[in-house]
């Protein structure tokens, strides 16, 4: 397949279609809208389901319903909509049905703006709504990777019967880059045996989230935790750039990471041994990978487009073995490589 010049949002949508998504439910919000619009055109063309819901509250519950029926299903939004979806995410988490959610992050809090930001890091990594559950979170840093991780998201969602959130941002969503899309997968021929599709020739299937007995509920919580531990053991992904001799280790994800890459190149030209660890899975977080780099590293710098959220996870991984600094640009401000380079220079001094 040849590379095409694709907008990130469209690459995600088309990758989802090729991964066999059967139904999309969503609500317009910038900077995610091209994704929904692409679905609006393509899904009916393919005889699949597209529905513009009345709100993100409804959208996530439609997703929940379709997932309970065993369909491969997704939704997408940005911060304000992801907030409204928290309720549904919680129900989905305990129901253990596979669901893919795309968050194209923008500046917040509140209505904020439509510029790229990473302020939803905590919201997507720390919890799936109320209660005690988490999702797998994938963070693409190029259009190609946005497409690739969308495919992976469906695989992981089904493998672990969990929510997978693809956490991009306005930059990944809106930019165009050449990317190669995967070939079209065929739709699954049958529904999974746990799905609610009508109790024909079997006992009834029930999917519920109410368990009044605390002991039963506790057991379910531990089961979800055990699954999370398995995910932590098996699914960590990160990209290492020039870390072998690095004295300054930069940890950054998504757009912040690709901007940082340019800064690192420039730092190297000036003889500074800087390298980067880019978490691709924000959850499971690559704590061990960070830890393994600490023997040589003298300073750790976290670059993120918020006031410091992932930095907490980095500090937990570093456990005081090196100073951890933060360079944050919140609210939709996008750092340029020069300013990151300045920070790197100041750390060396």
């Amino acid at each position, binding site marked *: 397949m040849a590379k095409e010049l694709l907008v990130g949002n469209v690459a995600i949508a088309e990758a989802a279609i090729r991964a066999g998504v059967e139904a999309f439910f969503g609500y317009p919000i910038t900077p995610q809208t091209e994704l929904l619009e692409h679905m609006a055109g393509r899904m009916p063309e393919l005889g699949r389901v597209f529905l513009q819901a009345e709100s993100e509250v409804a959208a996530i519950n439609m997703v929940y319903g379709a997932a309970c029926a065993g369909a491969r299903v997704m939704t997408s939004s940005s911060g304000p909509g992801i907030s409204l979806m928290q309720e549904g995410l919680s129900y989905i988490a305990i129901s253990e049905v596979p669901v893919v959610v795309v968050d194209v992050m923008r500046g917040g809090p509140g209505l904020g703006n439509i510029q790229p930001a990473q302020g939803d890091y905590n919201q997507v990594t720390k919890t799936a709504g109320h209660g005690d559950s988490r999702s797998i979170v994938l963070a693409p840093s190029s259009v190609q990777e946005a497409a690739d991780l969308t495919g992976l998201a469906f695989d992981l969602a089904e493998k672990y019967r969990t929510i997978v959130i693809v956490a991009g941002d306005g930059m990944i969503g809106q*930019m165009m880059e*050449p990317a190669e899309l995967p070939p079209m997968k065929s739709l699954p021929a049958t529904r999974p045996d746990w799905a609610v599709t009508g109790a024909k020739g079997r006992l009834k299937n029930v999917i519920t989230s109410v368990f009044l007995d605390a002991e039963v509920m506790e057991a379910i919580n531990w089961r979800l935790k055990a699954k999370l531990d398995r995910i932590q053991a098996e699914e960590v992904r990160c990209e290492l750039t020039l870390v072998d001799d690095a004295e300054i280790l930069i940890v950054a994800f998504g757009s912040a990471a690709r901007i940082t890459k340019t800064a690192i190149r420039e730092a190297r030209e000036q003889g500074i041994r800087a390298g980067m660890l880019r978490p691709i899975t924000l959850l499971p977080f690559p704590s061990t990978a960070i830890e393994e780099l600490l023997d040589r590293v003298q300073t750790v710098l976290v670059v993120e487009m918020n006031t410091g959220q992932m930095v907490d996870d980095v500090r937990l991984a570093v456990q005081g073995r090196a100073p951890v600094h933060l360079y944050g640009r919140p609210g939709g401000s996008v750092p340029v490589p020069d300013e990151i380079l300045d920070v790197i220079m100041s750390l060396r001094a």
Partner: protein
Amino acid sequence: MQQAIVISGFGGQGTLFAGMVLAYAGMDHGKHVTWIPSYGPEMRGGTANATVIVRDEEIGSPVVRYPDAAVVLNNPSMEKYEPLIKAGGVLVANISLVSAPSHRPDITCVPVPASDVATQLGDVRVANMVALGALAKATKILPVEAIVQALQDHLPERKRYLLEPNRQAVQEGAQIAERGEWASQRISE
């Protein structure tokens, strides 16, 4: 080698599309490219700009503070980007609309009456392509033929009828740049 280009103008002047054509041309020419839009508050009427990066290796940041070249189609764009162009860079200014002169002796100014040329070609909407042709010629970022080819290959079906005027516009812009008229008519007087 990396070149970062900003193309900026009013919403509706086709700056985003011009950027896309440049990105397509780069991609088809075997380069790494990124294209990223940035809207003003309104899609129409406000300024709309696209940043395009063309590079031989993998591209890190798709945004830059100091572009290697800027195409400015209106006055607000001129005010914003003329001071930011890297020393030794190129400024393509649509002098049909841009009235302010450049005060930068360290950049090459390419004045192009893009809107007037476009009107003469029969459609003011191709002013973006006149400017893009001039940019390609002045920066040598890509051969002018690559731009024309990209138009041919990627102009959407429903815009096909605009292929000819667009093609002419690119050629015309390139010729104006080549004639080097800016040497005598510097907009910095």
